[in-house]
């Protein structure tokens, strides 16, 4: 038990609470000891490269993008300030509206699919006894292979004339006519979602697996003794305990999927008939292929409000929500 003197001392000590950025003001620097000053200087030197990189490659392009979205720039001409005219034009553009709707459909379906498949793979991996390393490494392959390469392979696999998927289905007698995987709006959208889910599943699986391994076996043992079957154990034990990890992984995935470009660009190029465009691919089509830089910037910035909300929620969740307890 602490002595009265000790407890008074600990009560008098400042709370080891969060460091407020304002506390690092100039006054604080003047009052600091030489050792502290040296440490701060070192910190500043170590931070500078990262800060410069962020300013150059993230902050500058972002601010420039916002500015460009307000100009009627085309390739070779700086353009004049037109206010929100680019955004108004996009609002009236039926292809853009389609791209916006597509992006939400793509993100929604792909993320849920990735979660379902990732969870299944993680649960299987978690209960594996042998070949753990080799299986984990091979499971990560879709995620490690450069997207452009793997998507090109998928493009071949779904080719209208040479599809190996069709060939296989035909050989086992499941189809008699070939399936045109990328030829219709619904099939093409379904195909890009499937390929995205294939690529993103390992990210979910490996993160969820890490989460699964932090759950104590005692909890499962206790629930088994209480008579819970495997299904109940998953929904009543695994799922709630894994929720913080799941949420963070979902949020990361939503951000990546929402801003996806490579996969759709390679697989369908936004077609057929502009039916699989996402924000990013359509922004590229307007900005680079058509050369209307201002409108292209506006189209890509249209992603920003949604992504901003997701990031805000993510930061809040990690700090204050369930994530604060489980992940941080």
């Amino acid at each position: 038990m602490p002595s009265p003197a000790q407890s008074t001392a600990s009560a008098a000590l400042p709370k080891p609470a969060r460091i407020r950025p304002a506390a690092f003001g100039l006054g604080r620097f003047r009052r600091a000891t030489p050792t502290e000053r040296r440490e701060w200087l070192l910190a500043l030197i170590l931070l500078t490269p990262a800060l410069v990189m962020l300013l150059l490659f993230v902050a500058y392009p972002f601010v420039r993008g916002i500015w460009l979205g307000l100009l009627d720039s085309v390739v070779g001409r700086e353009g004049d300030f037109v206010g929100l005219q680019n955004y108004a034009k996009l609002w009236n553009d039926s292809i853009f509206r389609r791209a916006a709707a597509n992006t939400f459909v793509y993100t929604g379906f792909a993320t849920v699919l990735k979660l379902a498949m990732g969870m299944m793979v993680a649960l299987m991996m978690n209960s594996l006894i042998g070949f753990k390393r080799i299986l984990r490494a091979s499971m990560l392959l879709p995620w490690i292979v450069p997207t452009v390469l793997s998507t090109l392979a998928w493009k071949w696999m779904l080719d209208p004339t040479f599809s190996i998927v069709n060939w296989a289905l035909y050989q086992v007698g499941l189809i008699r006519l070939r399936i045109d995987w990328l030829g219709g709006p619904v099939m093409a959208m379904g195909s890009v979602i499937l390929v995205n889910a294939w690529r993103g599943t390992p990210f979910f699986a490996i993160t969820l697996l890490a989460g699964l391994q932090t759950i104590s076996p005692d909890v499962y043992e206790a629930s088994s003794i209480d008579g819970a079957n495997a299904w109940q154990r998953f929904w009543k034990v695994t799922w709630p305990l894994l929720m913080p990890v799941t949420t963070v992984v979902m949020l990361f995935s939503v951000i990546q999927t929402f801003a996806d470009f490579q996969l759709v660009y390679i697989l369908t190029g936004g077609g057929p008939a502009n039916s699989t465009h996402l924000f990013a691919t359509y922004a590229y089509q307007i900005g680079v292929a058509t050369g209307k830089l201002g409108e292209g910037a506006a189209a890509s910035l249209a992603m920003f409000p949604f992504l901003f909300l997701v990031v805000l929620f993510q930061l809040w969740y990690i700090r204050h929500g369930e994530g604060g307890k489980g992940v941080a």
Partner: protein
Amino acid sequence: MARRPPCVPLDGDELPGGLALDKKGTLEAIKLNTALWKECLDQGGLSWDDSSNNRAFLAGSISITTNGASIYFTARDKFPDIYKMMNHAPHPRGPAGRFYHLPVHSSLVMKHSKNQKLAKEFIRYYMDKEQYTKWFDVMGGYGLMPTKMWYDHPAWTRDPKLTPCRDPIKDARAPGYAGPPSRKASEALTKYIILDMLVKAIQGATPEDALKWAADELKKIYSA
């Protein structure tokens, strides 16, 4: 059978590009294209990229396609049986004439270039008959002629099967025809408005709705 660049036979009205679309002739063209697609063309074509028709032709899944001589050269080198049996012919003529959409490449020098004089001299040098002949000869009937003087080059007649490739340039139109080629025309092109119009009709929209959609999109582009 496969067909790649859809050429819309217009009524021949000399209206500025895009606005000429909203015509009866276009409606007929959409109907014809839809019927042609359903009855003769490769149904997988909607998901084709630039080289899909080459591959399908050489694989024997289609027997006719719209293309330059690239398939012919590949066949010559790798598919001798197909090579022996294939030949070139001009597009059939429509009610308003025969039209091709052919890509045109221009050599340009930027106004902000520091080496404008040198760049111009370089263009002049490589377009000069002495140098360009070698290049034109190697292309052997695949490239299009930049000026009329190349019409009589032996590359066109060395292989009689390549001679039909000499003439499409005469009926070629730049994007935006009957209006001038412009930024707006190229916007309509890169947004695939005409192509989408035809695809919408193939996918089940009425020809009238498909035409209205395309005409509206073009009006938006051209009125901006």
